[in-house]
């Protein structure tokens, strides 16, 4: 058996983390992307820049601030303690929050581009045909932006799978709770288990290649993506 049960547990945890993060990001990212694509507000620039920050910041920087915020003395930590939930650091929930922030631009930007490419006209047409804004979103915007949603979901998922720095800062290395594949590989290397590291690292390369292959092969038929 090339993969140990610890490896399999790490893979399972990674898939759970990436799936949950992607679902949350599609729900949270859609209104943000819609707003960024259509607003004439002066806040458009600053909000767009904040959403894009994880693209350029080292993951350790994001992880460091999240650690402080979610720790016992941080605002988030004090709030979760007040609710009786304890702190989110070194927990799966904390990892999900970190991943959502870390992968945010990879979901928001393809959606924003897709919404911008649709433009205001189809929305105006739908309104003159008696569709209210919610109706228009589900019957016009969603189908027209479908390629953007697919791109956003794939990029959000894949990017979360590839996360390492943020996990290490706020999640540590707890089996079945925070030890994802990237951390498990790091552990193998630290322990000089190069054969084990090879299997997992190879699986990651194969996975990432297949995801990107699917994405780039489908680009022809898409109207837009980042």
């Amino acid at each position, binding site marked *: 058996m090339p993969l140990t049960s610890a490896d399999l547990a790490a893979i399972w945890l990674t898939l759970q983390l990436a799936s949950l993060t992607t679902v949350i990001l599609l729900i949270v990212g859609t209104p943000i992307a819609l707003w960024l694509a259509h607003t004439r507000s002066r806040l458009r620039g600053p909000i767009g820049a904040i959403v894009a920050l994880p693209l350029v910041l080292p993951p350790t920087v994001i992880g460091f601030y999240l650690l402080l915020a979610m720790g016992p003395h941080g605002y988030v930590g004090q709030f979760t303690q007040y609710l009786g939930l304890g702190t989110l650091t070194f927990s799966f929930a904390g990892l999900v929050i970190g991943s959502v922030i870390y992968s945010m631009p990879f979901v928001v930007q393809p959606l924003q581009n897709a919404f911008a490419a649709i433009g205001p006209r189809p929305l105006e047409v739908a309104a*003159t045909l008696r569709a*209210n804004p919610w109706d228009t979103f589900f019957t016009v915007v969603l189908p027209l932006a479908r390629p953007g949603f697919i791109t956003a979901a794939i990029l959000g998922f894949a990017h979360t799978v590839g996360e390492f720095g943020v996990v290490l800062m706020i999640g540590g290395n707890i089996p079945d709770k925070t030890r994802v594949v990237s951390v498990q590989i790091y552990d193998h290397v630290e322990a000089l288990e190069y054969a084990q590291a090879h299997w997992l690292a190879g699986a990651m390369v194969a996975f990432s290649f297949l995801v990107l292959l699917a994405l780039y092969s489908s680009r022809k038929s898409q109207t837009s993506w980042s």
Partner: protein
Amino acid sequence: MTSQINLRLQHHYPGFALDLDLQLPGKGVTALYGHSGSGKTTCLRCIAGLERASQAYVQVNGHIWQDSQRNHFVPVHQRALGYIFQEASLFPHLSVRANLEFGLKRIAHQERRVDLAHATELLGITHLLTRAPHNLSGGERQRVGIARALLTSPKLLLMDEPLAALDSQRKSEILPYLQRLHAELDIPVLYVSHSQDEVARLADHIVLLNEGKVLGSGPIGETLARLDLPLARGDDAGVVIEGRVGNYNLNYQLLTLQLPGSTQHLRVTHASMAIGQPLRVKVQARDISLSLHPAEHSSILNSLRVTVVSETAADNQAHVLIRLDADGTPLLARITRYSRDQLGLRTGQILWAQIKSVAVLA
């Protein structure tokens, strides 16, 4: 219920201000006519609610859509209007049929006055129902767009230069459908255009816009003949006359058109039409010559007995424009200043207007 459209709009942009106060007939086709940048499209968008004018009162046949003084604004999707954009803007992810049904299925059954079969037959698109929008020609797309708007059974149809994006062949393909629409459906239309030809063919009423202000507004026959409006001064000036078919001479292919409220008539070469049918013709000001006596032994078909009403300068020194009256039907004649002096024209004088050509607008 009053059959009228009341509009008061004030809307400011950097470098542009729309400021108008209009009472328009609540039936027939009203053309909003003017150069690009005159505020026609903005006006239409404000009426639809696609743009929210800062100061506005919009009332359509008894329904108040906006009253900024009471902070009342009905959202676009709750206004019983149909909007035709310059480009058809069909939904690319839906078939022609699904596009047509998009508005239709959002209308309560008891409010539906136009059904799918009627609309598709009216616009000649029945054979296109299963096609995708990208497989249609520009003219077909625009016809689907018009049918789609009709299927919401609108109380007002707003058309923003529906033919502007089409070449002249496609235009002449759609115009007959618009004329049928006008004849068969009792829906008031506001039609934005900068084409004199489209306006002459379709409009019953015309509003002349310039830089966001109304220069003139009134029935088409009357307004085109108004000497105080820039329309009359151009080389293309002329009047539109809607008469009724008197009789038809099969041998000469000549149709007699009775002037409204008059015993006088015009004769035009035309295919046969039933007696009593309305027919619209355009008479250009430059095609009318004036004479002190009825012409005899002339190849000119049409000679009307007219009274001189008034006169104004044309767009050049050499010409003047004379407004004439043929038993209530206004006419414009563009003649040289020299001829005017030779004839000694004065108000109230009776003359014979010889009309070199009459263009049938159908």
